[in-house]
């Protein structure tokens, strides 16, 4: 029997599967055995091909923005799952719960009393200069006190295997449909293995999301109508929009389908105008309502914000949540946790330097080739400098930008993300990964067991975004630990 992992190289990065050459962590041993029972690489590749074909036929694709033709691609899927043992997940879950609670309290606070600003824990100008801070919403009491409903928090593991929070996505985090589709495919490819491992199911997500949306409806509506608002079929996440709408049995609408009459929202149906009570919007604040935000937006609905303020319709996420996922604000989340909850953060941040801070700025400018610099308002791997992988010219370009607008950037040390084996060409090699769990904040906080594991499929690349050559893996959270405890459990929490 050939050992498909015989030539697998572990390196200075933390490896999810191997403690050292030929030594799989306890919770990966069964997987290694299963893969080695195949008819060599040929069978693995055949299964990979059949999985790819399944994605293509089902149209599980995303659109690449960069060219006008709107090229459709499948989001590459890697067959080798990422496995998280139960005891690790417990900690992650507690940490994410804590973070979501603090973020919600923070948003509630800055849109009302602003205690945290008055006490100087977060600098006022930081909040007020944020592109996503919505003055219009100050003093508006959001129903049920839920200021953020859905968060996709990106986690990574550093060289020591410690989980750290890389960023929060509090506006319209995407990717959850891939989690659900990946699992469907894995059920076909490794049915017995999933059962033997006692992998926790992810399928409840859409039920939980629907309950959340129903929970948000105005109090006087017994049977609310919920819709999903999409920018349209050319949006890169359109597959996900239609997938979620289908799974929940709600309408997917575009801005042009909605009208506001007398501060109430209706959708245009063939037989007339039907009332709408909850909008799961997958478009940013800026595009929601041309009468309040960007007047040139054709995606939104004139009058929507007024209907919202009158309490006739609920929005998920609410307007203005983006201020909390501003990457400069991220720096303050551990302090928010301390301030509102009186606790230490369970999940640490990545060390972060603010270029708006004079001391940090000096450090950043002196160490650019070593650092990752991020624009605070961008997402998707855009507006980013990865120092060690950049040319002199690129570094100088960023230097100028940072000096020009220090509020707009943060810097972090280049972290060697953990690696996990992936099928690359006709061998198995280590590739860097991250993890995006999805946290729902409704009647209670619910966290889907697992999340989207993204993998940087380009050799050596640390960028996992789909727009930058990333793919995904199924994430297996185990219901109970395997008999032998994982050897690294001790250093999980530092």
């Amino acid at each position, binding site marked *: 029997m050939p050992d498909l992992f015989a030539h697998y190289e572990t390196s200075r990065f933390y490896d999810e599967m191997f403690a050292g050459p030929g030594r799989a962590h306890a919770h990966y041993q069964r997987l290694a055995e299963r893969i080695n029972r195949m008819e060599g690489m040929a069978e693995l590749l055949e299964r990979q091909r059949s999985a790819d074909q399944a994605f*293509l*036929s*089902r*149209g599980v694709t995303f659109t690449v923005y960069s060219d006008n033709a709107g090229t459709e691609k499948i989001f590459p899927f890697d067959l080798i799952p990422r496995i998280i043992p139960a005891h690790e997940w417990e900690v992650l879950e507690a940490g994410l719960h804590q973070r979501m609670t603090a973020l919600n309290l923070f948003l509630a606070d800055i849109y009302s009393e602003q205690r945290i600003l008055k006490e100087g824990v977060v600098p006022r100008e930081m909040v007020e200069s944020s592109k996503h801070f919505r003055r219009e919403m100050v003093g508006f009491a959001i129903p049920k006190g839920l200021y953020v409903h859905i968060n996709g928090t990106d986690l990574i593991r550093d060289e020591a295997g410690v989980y750290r929070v890389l960023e929060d996505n509090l506006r319209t985090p995407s990717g959850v449909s891939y989690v659900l589709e990946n699992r469907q495919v894995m059920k076909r490819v490794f049915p017995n293995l999933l059962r033997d491992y006692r992998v926790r199911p992810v399928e409840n997500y859409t039920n939980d999301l629907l309950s959340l949306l129903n929970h948000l409806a105005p109090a006087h509506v017994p049977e609310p109508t919920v819709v999903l608002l999409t920018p*349209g*079929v050319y949006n890169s996440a*359109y597959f996900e*929009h*239609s*997938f979620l*709408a*289908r799974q929940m049995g709600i*309408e*997917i*609408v*575009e801005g*042009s*389908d909605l*009208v506001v*009459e007398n501060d109430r929202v*209706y*959708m*245009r*149906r*063939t*037989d*007339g*105008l*039907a*009332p709408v009570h909850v909008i799961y919007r997958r478009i940013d604040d800026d595009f929601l309502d041309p009468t309040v935000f960007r007047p040139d937006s054709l995606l939104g609905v004139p009058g929507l914000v007024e209907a919202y303020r009158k309490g006739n319709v609920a929005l998920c996420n609410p307007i203005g949540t983006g201020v909390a996922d501003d990457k400069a604000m991220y720096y303050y989340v551990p302090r928010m946790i301390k301030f509102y909850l009186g606790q230490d953060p369970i999940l640490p941040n990545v060390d972060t330097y603010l270029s708006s801070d004079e001391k940090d700025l000096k450090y950043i400018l002196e160490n650019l080739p070593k650092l990752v610099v991020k624009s605070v308002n961008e997402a998707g791997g855009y507006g980013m400098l990865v120092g060690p992988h950049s040319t002199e010219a690129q570094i100088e370009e960023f230097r100028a930008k940072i000096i020009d607008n220090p509020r707009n950037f943060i810097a972090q040390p280049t972290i060697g993300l953990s690696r996990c084996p992936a099928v690359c060409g006709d061998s198995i090699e280590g590739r860097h990964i991250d993890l995006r769990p999805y946290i729902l904040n409704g009647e209670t906080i619910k966290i889907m067991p697992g999340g989207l594991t993204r993998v940087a499929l380009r050799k050596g690349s640390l960028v996992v975004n789909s727009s930058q050559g990333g793919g995904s893996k199924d994430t297996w959270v185990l219901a109970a630990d395997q008999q032998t405890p994982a050897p690294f459990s001790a250093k999980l929490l530092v």
Partner: protein
Amino acid sequence: MLSRVANLIYWTARYLERAENTARIADVNAQLVLDLQSRQAADDPRSWGPLVYVSGGDDRFKELYGTSTTERAVIEFMLFDRRNPSSFLSCIAQARENARCIRDQLAGEVWEELNTFYLKLKDDDYVRYAQIGSAEYLASLRRRVQMFYSVADSMIPRTQLWWFFELGRFLERADNTTRILDVKYFMLMPDRTQVGSALDMVQWASVLRSCSAFEAFRQSRRGQLSLERVIDYLVRDTAFPRSILYSMLAAREALAQITQGRFSTEELPAAALLSDLERELQESVAKEIITAGLHEFLDDIQVRIGNVHAAIQDTFVHYATSGARVLG
């Protein structure tokens, strides 16, 4: 149902039906060319030119291919050219794009059938068409559309989604049947001496076959093949599902299902227009149609189908919001 969604499914059906009929028209032409020995040379512009004309793509064709109506140019234009919005490929691509917009409403299998068809089709070209042979290649395209219909038929619930699909499909079909008849008219126009000859019979048989109507025509016991009888059958038969009258009746049924009797015929402009057209078709006589001019007759029907289409858009899709009915 959302107006936008209704419009998308309606157009999905129209595009699919148009694609299928484009394949049919190309097929009837290929067969006619074989039958008309004097025009057998594939490059004779008289053989393939009319096809472009009846499909309504004349100007676009000239723009792209000039005046050379060779088989290759016409087939490329009508089947594979994405620059022609009515080409077979354009129609399937558009139908798939529409279905993608509403895939939350469609069963997975319905979408997958269309998606895999498109993915397979998109790399085909004239070379492949010629390699396989026109009859076989065109039949394979038709079969694939038929397959989609059968999946749709067994999967789509009989809600408005289905009835807008039916509405689009039968309006398009009626329009397309007029165009298939028109090809024949164009082919024979310069040469009326052969009406009623053995060659003429062969040609009418091929027109019927292109509508998959040959056996049905025979079974309807309408006797010998003749210009009049074939026209009568394809225009006015109430039992044959590709006849113009049948398509009108089916479209009106779809409309009735959509409105669930909320409107009377008079209140619903599209229904009123359809019912006028039906009555005229029922009262028409094939002989008179021919005397007065078949082409003009068919042209008139196409215009009126266009009016029905516009009325449907006004009532269900682009109605004014102020003063519109508000639902409970």
